[in-house]
């Protein structure tokens, strides 16, 4: 394998994996909280929240990237604060690529989790309450474990989506070798230079293999949790 890809190419794969893993791990708690609210709560504005969560799925990724730039750029309200208070810079860094991937993966992750939370019978939560469990304990001992396969599926799906993230990343984090040049960006760069076809082919095959594996695993996990009724794909 190591003769097949150059060290530079390996570092592209490694960077992609790092960006995707960090994006997914950081998004999981927020995605689960949103999924729970959307699955279990009824309040005015729930439709608006639902629409906001799904926005990155339908808005052109370049728009999402531009919005991230406005908010998280050095002069943006959040980016400026992060840099001044915590010394964290996102633009042009791999952390920015992870943020872009996280925002783009969020809707898919929320969808997968929401399905599995909705599949948890609320009457079981009621039963736990009568047996002495607080709302929180009932959530931790009943809802959370019963929706765990959905969490795993969402993680795999978010991972696959993050690996493929292009538009928001190149807009927000730019295309800097070693910092933000993930697999799709490297493939794009390869297409811009003469003689890059071999590199493009190799990186594309890796992308396809990684994404396919993540999708198959997530579909299997959801089938196990919700029977044949639910699907991610």
């Amino acid at each position: 394998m190591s003769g097949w890809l150059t060290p530079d190419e390996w570092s592209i794969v490694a960077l992609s994996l790092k960006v995707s893993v960090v994006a997914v791990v950081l998004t999981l708690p927020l995605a689960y909280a949103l999924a729970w609210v959307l699955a279990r709560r009824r309040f005015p504005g729930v439709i608006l929240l639902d629409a906001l969560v799904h926005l990155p799925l339908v808005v052109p990724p370049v728009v999402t990237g531009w919005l991230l730039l406005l908010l998280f750029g050095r002069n943006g309200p959040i980016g400026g604060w992060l840099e001044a208070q915590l010394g964290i810079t996102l633009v042009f860094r791999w952390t920015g690529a992870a943020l872009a991937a996280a925002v783009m993966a969020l809707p898919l992750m929320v969808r997968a989790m929401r399905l599995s939370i909705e599949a948890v019978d609320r009457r079981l939560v009621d039963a736990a309450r009568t047996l002495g469990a607080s709302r929180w304990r009932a959530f931790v001992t009943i809802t959370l474990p019963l929706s765990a396969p959905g969490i795993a599926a969402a993680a795999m799906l978010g991972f696959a989506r993050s690996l493929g993230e292009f538009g928001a990343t190149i807009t927000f984090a730019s295309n800097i070798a070693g910092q933000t040049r993930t697999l799709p960006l490297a493939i794009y760069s390869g297409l811009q230079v003469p003689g890059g076809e071999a590199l493009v082919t190799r990186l594309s095959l890796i992308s396809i293999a990684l994404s396919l594996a993540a999708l198959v695993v997530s579909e299997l996990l959801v089938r196990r949790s919700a029977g044949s009724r639910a699907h991610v794909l």
Partner: protein
Amino acid sequence: MSFEVSLDHRVGERHVALAFASDAPLTALVGASGAGKTTVLNCIAGLIRPDRGRIAVAGRTLFESATGVHLRPERRRAGYVFQDFRLFPHLRVGANLAYGERLAQLADRWITRDEVTGLLGIGHLLQRWPATLSGGEMRRVAIGRALLAAPRFLLLDEPFASLDAERAEALMALVERIRDELKIPILLVSHDRTEVERLAERVVTLG
């Protein structure tokens, strides 16, 4: 008074209204299907908040719309045996039985795990998953789980349905023992006239 209930609750087209006070150790709640018997149990257990009324069990006010009292279900300590069992599918029978027991204060417990498994004949099921149990076995586990949570009163929703005669008899004897020895107020929903006549001193009709 073991049960003092007066409630008024409307869900969509359905209207459930009931008022009774019973000092009987075991009170039976009867009525046609769809009359709202389970709704009444849910109100007493704290799973439904009635529109209006007052609910007190053994002198303790659980709900009172006039004063805004509405105890959370986990504070009411109802031993609720659901008609549809509601065993936790991701926990083995043993862990289902232990769920409420672990949350109960030691001083409040009035029955041990061994007593429960012996009385209900479920000792051999502890390692099984709920999905592998028969209907009768699930019901017995559900009853055991409710008893082990050290409840202050029992709400039994058709507890003897789908049990064979021998097991139903054993369970009725257990309910009689709880009624007579432990003096825990019991509210029983049942369709079976002989069951009601045998166990209940007081019959409340909802309809």
